[in-house]
């Protein structure tokens, strides 16, 4: 089951280094949901964001979660 969920997440690529980033955190943005209600996760009450970090340069990127 966990494997199926994980496979939905395509690895982010670091825009600076071009290497695969590590997805290590989720964050709910409640205020963004006010301006983009269509993107709000009704179960979580906000917009889910994934946090990815580059193991080479340490840079962090955020993208909308699923």
């Amino acid at each position, binding site marked *: 089951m966990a494997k199926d969920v994980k496979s939905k997440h395509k690895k982010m690529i670091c825009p600076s280094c071009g290497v695969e980033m*590590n*997805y*290590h955190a989720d964050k709910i943005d409640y205020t963004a949901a006010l301006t983009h209600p269509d993107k709000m996760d009704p179960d979580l009450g906000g917009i889910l964001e994934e*946090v990815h*970090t580059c193991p*080479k340069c*340490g840079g*962090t*990127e955020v993208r909308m979660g699923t």
Partner: protein
Amino acid sequence: MNSNRLIFIPVILGTSRQGRMSEHVAKFILEEVSKRDGVETELIDIRNLSLTTSDAGENIKDKKFSETVMRADALIIIAPEYNHGYPGLLKHVLDTNLKEYIHKAVGICGVSAGGFGGTRVIQNLLPVMRELGLVTIFWDGNFSSVQNIFDSSGKLLDHSYIKRIDKFLKELIWMARVLRYGRDNVPL
């Protein structure tokens, strides 16, 4: 884990007031961090950040400040206690970033003219740190009666603080290394 990168721990001087004694604390901490092998640091003086007060949050990011926090593995916040709370400008500055903080370590040094070493400002900052995604350590820096710890030029008069800060920094650096490994390698 890319071991070539030094652990980077900037020190945030969290007040812009004239005559701030916290500046002595920040410079002392900066010097102590600089002594550690494999660690680099720099001072972030919030007085030097020109942030508007007509807006807040990520809308008013300071590019250099955000890049510095992005590169950081941990932060040290020097927070004077003003009327039992933290400086409003410090909160205004901290609120301009978000993704830059997530799963990074933070240590807080409280500064007070009285005898409680900024314990109340530290306690008030802890929930803010948590919401920003920072990971707090269980050592603090408590600078009580700060006017007696440094002379007017910033020279350290009470050398017991060297040992106290050594313990604080060991814990912070350990947490910074562990969290960097996690950010780089451990998937959610």
